[in-house]
């Protein structure tokens, strides 16, 4: 059974059908990429999975539990962390306070402290800047903070929305290296990206999204070789 299963998901914004019946699944331990152009509906799908946006039809099942109607604030304690588009760190709070909020639903103080050390080990720059306000960090650092904050909930699955957005190529590589490490450490990853090449290079499988529909799916390595993908998303 898949860890996360999205079935016939439809989402409407007013009269616009943003998502027109999307199905996909994520198995435990996988890195799954959802690629597509701007406006394809990638962010909407993630927001619907974590309850920020209500679906019109379809189901989202996580570890056998139907979470379609579960409110957003109850999702994280089920073991799913969402790194939202544009990082959305709390700019007025310090790096440390942001990370603590990542562990908001947890009560095991000593485990949280261990987790914090782990995050600091993975992102040494966050440790250096732990007392700095998050709003004063650079884009790359904010992305690291958003990821670190998500990891503070000890998620089974981490869903990431455009982690490469607005970052320099060097930082994009760095962020994707970290995603690979997170995956290697046992966390399942669902990543949404416009940077298809980068996403496909780290993913096991991928789905290609076009205006609210999945038009193509398969092994990431095969999609990298697919002529239509190459043409539309890889700029070759």
């Amino acid at each position: 059974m898949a860890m996360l299963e999205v079935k016939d998901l439809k989402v409407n914004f007013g009269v616009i059908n943003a998502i027109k019946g999307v199905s996909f699944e994520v198995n435990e331990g996988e890195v799954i990429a959802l690629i597509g152009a701007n406006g394809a509906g990638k962010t909407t799908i993630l927001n619907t999975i974590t309850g920020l946006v209500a679906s019109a039809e379809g189901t989202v099942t996580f570890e056998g539990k139907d979470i379609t109607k579960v409110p957003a604030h109850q999702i994280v304690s089920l073991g799913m962390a969402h790194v939202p588009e544009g990082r959305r760190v709390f700019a007025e709070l310090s790096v440390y306070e942001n990370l603590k909020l990542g562990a908001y639903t947890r009560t095991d103080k000593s485990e949280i402290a261990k987790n914090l050390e782990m995050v600091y080990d993975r992102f040494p720059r966050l440790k250096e800047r732990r007392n700095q306000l998050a709003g004063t960090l650079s884009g790359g650092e904010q992305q690291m903070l958003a990821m670190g904050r998500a990891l503070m909930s000890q998620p089974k699955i981490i869903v990431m929305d455009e982690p490469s957005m607005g970052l320099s190529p060097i930082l994009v590589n760095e962020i994707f290296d970290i995603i690979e490490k997170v995956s290697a450490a046992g966390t399942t990853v669902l990543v949404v990206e416009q940077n298809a090449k980068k996403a496909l290079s780290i993913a096991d499988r991928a789905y290609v999204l076009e205006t609210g529909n999945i038009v193509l799916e398969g092994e990431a390595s095969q999609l990298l070789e697919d002529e239509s993908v190459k043409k539309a998303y890889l700029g070759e």
Partner: protein
Amino acid sequence: MSFISYLINGISLGSIYAIIALGYTMVYGIAKMLNFAHGDVIMIGCYVVFTTVTGLGLNPYLSILLSVIVCTVLGVVIEKIAYKPLRKAPPLAVLITAIGVSYFLQNFALLIFGADTKSFTSVIPMNNIKLAGDKLVISGVAMVTVCICIVIMLALMTFIKRTKAGQAMLAVSEDKDAAQLMGVNVNGTISLTFAIGSGLAAIAGVLLCSAYPTLTPYTGSMPGIKAFTAAVFGGIGSIPGAFIGGILLGIIEILGKAYISSQLSDAIVFAVLIIVLLVRPTGILGKAVHEKV
């Protein structure tokens, strides 16, 4: 000497404004709305103290506690019934609703307690202090008011900085969606904010009516508006801003009354507000809001 005593009276009145302004500023920070019924919650709190102390002979401290409980519950209920259904409505709809709730509370009090002015007996048993050979008299109520205001301010700032619920409030005030992704229950946080603001309103009411011992259904209205002004003055959404705005407003009002004109004192207060907003549109401690790119 008279200047110092005016100043002390101003700080004391300003402390009351500051406590009321906290309710405005916290609710604005978290729920992004102006709760114009806040001043009338104060009035209800005063009536609770008045009825239970004067009418039922209840111990004043118990009565203040009861008033805090009543106002806390009232604030949460108002939010649930009147504002929560409008969470996604345009701000103007919420604003008009708040004004409606304000009129509702005033008329409710009119119906239950009548229009006549009740004379409120101070429930603060503190004698005046005479200094400098009786030339300077500091009222006991004024001192208690200032102390309570400082204690509330420090307690609130500690609560927000040091507790999980406080950090959740900051998170919600900055980004509701991101806060939810952390597991923060936004509705619960908004309720908590209304509860704290309204509980503080009860305390402000007792202090207000102890210093100015008349009580009518409109008692909360003017202090409410002045406290709102104080919140804007200090930078709405900012807790230290509410404190500074409240104190300054109180001082300006009392000094204006003493040295310029007692009829014009309110006009002076609002004129100062207008000038401050012209120079610093975000208020003294307010931060410029950056549009997210």
